């Protein structure tokens, strides 16, 4: 995301054209984070729109202490978490704060024989993330993809930093089950040393 400081300053002065420019420059990143958090294109679009409406009110409070992208990601994730909570209530799903996914098993994903170039890995990762339960997905997306601190992750989800840490580790285990344990098949298909997990070859 590359939003020039001059555009941000004009937005803070109430220039509507600058705000539209800011939307054009950042919407793809905002939508990507929203989709990775909500796991649903319709919800992601709604979150992206709501993020800019919230930004319209709050952009004057941006002081430049963090990078603008970091700040915008925080706003986006906050809107997305609110949306996930509403969705969980509406569909009677497990609330984000709960830890009721202990017995959840990852579905098989992707073609185990496929060669893992960077793009394919990204696509498979995105697909694996979409298959994670919302509470796991949120923590791993915020922490491992977008680099939020565990404290911030806990704050956003309404759980303690320790609980966020435990959940992150479980989420990584689940993701690895979905992705990396396919390595033996990949190693057989592509030759030794090409799979992402050397340990699995033993």
């Amino acid at each position: 995301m590359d939003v020039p400081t001059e555009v941000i300053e004009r937005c803070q002065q109430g220039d509507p054209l600058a705000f539209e420019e800011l939307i054009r420059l950042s919407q793809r990143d905002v939508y990507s984070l929203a989709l990775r958090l909500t796991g649903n294109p319709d919800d992601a679009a709604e979150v992206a729109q709501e993020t800019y409406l919230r930004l319209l009110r709050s952009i004057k409070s941006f002081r430049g202490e963090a990078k603008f992208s970091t700040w915008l990601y925080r706003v986006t994730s906050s809107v997305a978490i609110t949306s996930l909570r509403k969705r969980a209530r509406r569909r009677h799903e497990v609330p984000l704060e709960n830890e009721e996914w202990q017995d959840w098993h990852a579905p098989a994903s992707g073609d185990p024989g496929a060669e893992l170039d960077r793009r394919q890995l990204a696509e498979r990762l995105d697909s694996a993330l979409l298959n994670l339960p919302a509470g796991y997905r949120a923590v791993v997306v915020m922490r491992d993809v977008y680099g939020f601190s565990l404290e911030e992750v806990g704050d956003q989800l309404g759980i303690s930093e320790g609980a966020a840490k435990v959940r992150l580790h479980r989420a990584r285990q689940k993701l690895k089950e979905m992705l990396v344990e396919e390595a033996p098949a990949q190693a057989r298909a592509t030759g030794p040393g090409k799979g992402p997990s050397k340990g699995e070859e033993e």
Partner: protein
Amino acid sequence: MECREAAQHIPSYIDQSGGPAASALDAHLRTCDRCRGELDAYRDLQGALAALATQTIEPPAWLLPATIDAVRSRVRLRRHVAAAREVRDRLADPRVAAAGGAAILLAGLATGAVLIRGRRRRRLVSGLRTAAVHA
């Protein structure tokens, strides 16, 4: 430390946050190829996840114009609300309220004066008519 226990600690070990199990895990990793492989797998996963942040997903084509429309509507609404607040604040100003009160009082006095004058005129006309009849 056994491999089973090591496997529980590896997902947090990649954060390099230390912890009581870190030194025991260090020792285990020095002697166990399998668990070192596990650690490498988690590091690969972490690297791939971090790389995702730069790989964005194309939003639907309708989203940009819809968002701009929504923002424009909100800006218009905020302007109307601001204008309405300005009117309300002006009315709440004590000087404006005093001037309004004075205007209402003056209007009341003027109306009263007109009514009293009309009544006197009606009485005068009525008196003249009675005098004319008697004459």
